[in-house]
């Protein structure tokens, strides 16, 4: 008798790892504009914090540019330093 024969009613979800990619490399975007606050808003969370590479999949080279652009936008009050319910 097979004791460790576990059966499930519904097949268990095995998470398929989605390959991350750098959106700037893929689109061939060379320059990130600090004046374009609407675009940069995609790269922060709802508190206005910069999203890590771990989540967005941005390459190191472009993450540096993202950081610079967001910090410049903050200085010019185009983006908030701290916020709540940004999205």
């Amino acid at each position, binding site marked *: 008798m097979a004791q460790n024969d576990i059966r499930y009613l519904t097949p268990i979800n095995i998470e398929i790892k989605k390959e991350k990619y750098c959106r700037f490399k893929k689109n061939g975007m*060379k*320059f990130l504009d*600090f*004046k374009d606050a609407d675009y940069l808003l995609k790269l922060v969370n709802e508190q206005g914090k910069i999203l890590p590479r771990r989540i967005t999949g941005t390459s190191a080279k472009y993450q540096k540019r993202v950081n610079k652009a967001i910090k410049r936008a903050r200085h*010019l*009050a*185009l*983006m*908030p330093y701290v916020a709540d319910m940004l999205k």
Partner: protein
Amino acid sequence: MNSYETVFILTPVLSEEQAKEAVQAFESEVKALKGKVSHSESWGLRKLAYPIQKKSTGFYFLTEFQAPGSAIGELEVMFKRDERVMRFLTVKMDKDHLAYAETRRARLGAKKKPAAEAEA
């Protein structure tokens, strides 16, 4: 000669006329320092993301210019002394930035041509 881009914010207490005057003062200063203004743009009265000097709005102006590097220090000192200017940022433009500025200008020009012509 390098290319630079400056964005500065003027206090909202100024009238339109006074704001224009401040921009003209800046542009003539660039020229006085052997620079050349290649593009200037007014974003009008905008809401700030956070209050600066207890103001929640400001006049935004964008200027692109070519100038020798020594001019930047003088311009920044001018901004600091000027009480009308709440914030400023000067960035040196590399070749990607220049290419981007070109396309951005074309895009904006296509969007509101009549306004640009009225300004010129």
